[in-house]
């Protein structure tokens, strides 16, 4: 069961972050040239791959399972709650939604101000911006792939399991977002980023609660089914929180 959730969470988390990275790559490509933007993006993706490979292998080989569950589960829980919290605040109107079109225009204006750097093949400003964009946006994905993948190492989907399965989800997202970017040639402003972030936040929070709890010795009464119950509970409570915060904002505005 957790294999499907692992694939889903990794896919959607990666999609959200890659939509944001795509905005930066498009802005860089148009203002500084596509060669530098692509090389920078590829270099960023390669560094992310190495981070996942090295950290993932180190964690799963050398850290005992109980310690892994409490530490990784704890990180996953904190990370999931941060995503969920931001999504709730955005739904409630207390935090601005990501506007890829606006971010794209701002990035294009900023990059156009800087004069070309590096004679010949590579524009180093373009390379650096694309590299940093992919690396920083992808770091959260790498973190999710490593933590989620190393904890859910038992279940497999299509022959893949653990970090390998989470990586498949991330690569699928990369392919789809890259194709969409190539076809549309503009930022993907219509992607429901907040809904996807909320969904991933719910999955990470439910699994993080379960694994971190197991790590500190909790005996979950419903065993693995607990994860589904937690997912449902957190979803209902998130909806209630959005409703309560919206009402509070409305009352505050009319008072």
């Amino acid at each position: 069961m957790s294999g499907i959730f692992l694939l889903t969470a990794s896919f959607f988390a990666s999609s959200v972050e890659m939509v944001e990275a795509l905005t930066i790559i498009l802005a860089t490509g148009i203002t500084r040239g596509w060669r530098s933007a692509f090389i920078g993006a590829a270099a960023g993706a390669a560094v992310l791959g190495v981070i996942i490979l090295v950290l993932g292998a180190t964690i799963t080989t050398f850290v005992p399972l109980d310690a892994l569950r409490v530490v990784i589960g704890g990180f996953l829980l904190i990370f999931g709650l941060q995503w969920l919290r931001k999504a709730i605040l955005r739904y409630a109107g207390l935090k601005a939604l990501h506007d890829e079109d606006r971010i794209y225009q701002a990035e294009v204006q900023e990059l156009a101000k800087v004069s070309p750097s590096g004679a010949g093949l590579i524009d180093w400003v373009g390379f650096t911006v694309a590299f940093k964009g992919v690396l920083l946006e992808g770091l959260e994905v790498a973190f999710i792939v490593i933590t989620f993948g190393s904890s859910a190492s038992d279940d497999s989907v299509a022959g893949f399991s653990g970090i390998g399965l989470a990586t498949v989800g991330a690569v699928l997202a990369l392919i789809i977002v890259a194709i969409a970017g190539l076809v549309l040639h503009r930022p993907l402003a219509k992607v429901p980023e907040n809904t996807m972030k909320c969904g991933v936040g719910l999955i990470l929070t439910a699994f993080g609660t379960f694994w971190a709890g197991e790590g500190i010795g909790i005996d979950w009464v419903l065993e693995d089914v607990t994860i589904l119950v937690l997912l449902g509970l957190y979803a209902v409570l998130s909806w209630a929180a959005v409703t309560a915060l919206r009402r509070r904002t409305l009352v505050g505005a009319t008072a």
Partner: protein
Amino acid sequence: MKYVRGFFAFWYDFIVGDAWEVAAGVVAALVFIGVLIHSNQDLAEVLGFVFVAAVVGIVGISLWRE
């Protein structure tokens, strides 16, 4: 020194983000409940409910502070 500070600031921002109370609350709940379970194994089932309630409470307080 500037790079060391930058390094820690990056990881703080990456993991803790703009809601330190969430990270602190989760760590405190894990330590507190973990100690309780290890002192009395009979509580291992009941404390599952307490842990979930703590997680919900932590986010609730953090959201209400906004």
